[in-house]
């Protein structure tokens, strides 16, 4: 039985269920829309014209394939005298500055295909909101983005970008006023306006088919990175590191490696003040089995099943759930999930800025911190591939406050 299981490929696994996770815990009113979407995306991805159009936009608009950059100075500073090699998959160089555009462009094309005219989205860091607003502007769709009030404050730059791109940004004032509440509000909009509206979910979370569909739109990251690593290093990496909010950039880079058992996959969740303090966003490391936003997965919750507010310096990781495929990869032991506290992520953030001239998104800095840990473990023969999921322009305010860079002094 074990040999049989080992032979079943992990790539290409689709929902609705990943082991005991996934499914559709949603009102009946949305079933028709989810079935329409499920059929539309599967037809589209199997159709050469659709994939051709998506590929063309990747090449001529998004800037794919994104680069692989080796980070030797970062590796040396992080790893001491005998550092492992660290390779960065540069999703930060995509148009709009993160991996989110891969998914947004794909789903916006699907929206047109389904004959809908309006997209709505939730956003935390604002990167998915910007990506959605961008895709909508490009393809002539109306866009409405829900964003928690707290996040609008900490990612103000992205609010302006969305508005410049013609999207309406609606502040969400309920609950913790962050990503999960924005998602609640977007769901309420969707059930009301589903006839002309597509809900362009920004992560590999939510009800089926979103976790599978978003994975399929993001897996290009890993397909490219696997090929690029082979070309650059002559072999596969030992470890792949990615940050995990809802899990889209992580599953996007993991997927191509799922059936390479020699490659370890490590997801880095936001540890906030530390998982032991209860103030964190690490759903796999510190959550329980529950249902959030239509999917069964690991959720930060209290003894009664009420969602507990997540905490992270990174708005994009500040989510109390995780995509069901990650929960399953954790269950079967194919991927490992660890948490990175705010302070450690900010240290990695600063180090990449100064050693490589790259300002990463604070989300991605969690993956960099994971790469430092893994590199130290592997030593000089090791290769760590990191998904640099986004750039840090949106985070300069947070970083300025964190490092004290706005005052008279040097901030050192």
């Amino acid at each position, binding site marked *: 039985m074990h040999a049989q299981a080992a032979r079943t490929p992990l790539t290409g696994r689709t929902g609705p269920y990943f082991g005991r996770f996934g499914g559709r815990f949603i009102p009946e*009113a949305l079933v028709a829309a989810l079935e329409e979407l499920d059929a539309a995306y599967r037809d589209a991805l199997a159709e050469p014209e659709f994939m051709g159009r998506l590929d063309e936009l990747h090449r001529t608009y998004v800037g794919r394939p994104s680069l692989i950059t080796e980070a030797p100075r970062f590796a040396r500073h992080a790893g001491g005298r005998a550092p492992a090699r660290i390779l960065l998959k540069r999703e930060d160089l995509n148009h709009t500055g993160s991996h989110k555009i891969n998914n947004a462009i794909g789903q916006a094309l699907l929206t047109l295909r389904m004959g809908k005219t309006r997209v709505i989205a939730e956003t935390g860091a604002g990167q998915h909101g910007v990506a959605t607003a961008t895709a909508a502007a490009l393809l002539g769709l109306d866009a409405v983005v829900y964003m928690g009030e707290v996040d609008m404050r900490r990612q103000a730059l992205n609010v302006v970008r969305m508005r410049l791109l013609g999207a309406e940004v609606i502040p969400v004032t309920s609950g913790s006023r962050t990503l*999960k509440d924005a998602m609640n509000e977007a*769901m309420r909009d969707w059930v009301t306006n589903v006839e002309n509206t597509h809900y362009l979910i920004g992560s590999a979370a939510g009800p089926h088919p979103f976790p599978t569909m978003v994975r399929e739109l993001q897996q290009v990251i890993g397909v490219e990175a696997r090929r690029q690593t082979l070309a650059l290093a002559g072999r596969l990496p030992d470890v792949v590191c990615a940050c995990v909010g809802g899990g889209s950039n992580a599953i996007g880079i993991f997927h191509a490696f799922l059936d390479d058992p020699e490659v370890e996959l490590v997801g880095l969740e936001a540890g906030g003040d530390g998982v032991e303090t209860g103030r964190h966003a690490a759903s796999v490391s510190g959550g*329980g089995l*529950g*249902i959030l936003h239509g999917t069964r997965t690991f*959720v930060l919750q209290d003894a009664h099943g009420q969602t507990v507010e997540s905490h992270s310096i990174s708005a994009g990781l500040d989510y109390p759930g995780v995509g069901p495929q990650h929960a399953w990869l954790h269950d079967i032991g194919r991927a490992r999930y660890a948490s990175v506290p705010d302070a450690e992520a900010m240290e990695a953030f600063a180090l990449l800025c100064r050693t490589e001239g790259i300002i990463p998104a604070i989300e991605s800095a969690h993956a960099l911190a994971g790469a430092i840990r893994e590199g130290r473990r592997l030593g000089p023969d090791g290769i760590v591939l990191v998904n640099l999921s986004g750039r840090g322009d949106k985070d300069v305010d947070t970083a300025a406050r964190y490092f004290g860079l706005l005052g008279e002094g040097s901030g050192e």
Partner: protein
Amino acid sequence: MSARATIERAKSEGRAALIGYLPVGFPDVATSVAAMRAMVAGGVDVLEVGLPYSDPLMDGPLIQRATEAALVGGATPADGFTAVREAGAPALVMTYWTLVDRYGVARFAADLAAAGGAGMITPDLIPDEAAGWHAAADEHGLDRVHLVAPTSTPERLALAARSSRGFLYAASLMGVTGERDLVSTTAKDLVARTKEVTDLPVCVGLGVGTGAQAAEVAGFADGVIVGSAFVRALMDAPDRASGLAAVEAVARELAAGVRKAASVAAT
């Protein structure tokens, strides 16, 4: 008496049943239970006891505010069983599924049955995901009420009907809970489509708040479901006594409404 028997007794009186929702714990557990009793005194036939949840993504701002306050006050699923026991009318729990999932569906069903509950309405548990609940409900003789929506296909209407016991909940419009100025025109059509596939009573909820609207819906449905209007009455009241009086007055108006349709239909 079961929910279905109550709805059918109303039918034999030539009227629709009145079904009232209130979340337990708003503004506090004792007052919410007293308010449910006031609803029954005012003419509510069947109660829906809501369990407050942190992420009520099918509720509009009014019920969101009430359930948020209930959670701040510490309301738990166990308080729901207290309400079921003391409400004084057939009572079903209405809840987001994650709370039951966490409690454990078998234990939840056992405790609900022990409290004398009639069953459960599951707005975010579609029949496709409900095998565990169906088994637990059968073991304890509980009603299982699924929803149908304007977007439900004939196949899905049939699935919901096959999967339900007690009655079917027809969500009258596409949207979240809250009062509306007009009863949606889709409601009547949905009830007609549902009745083609089932003999179960079909009750209509979402957007009904006034006696006139109740009368209109009672003209084509077996039951009229009202939530936000009761919550608003309780929320707007300056003190507990006037809140309970206001809730009872709303129930009276709606109860007159479901009877007015009968007299219109009779003439």
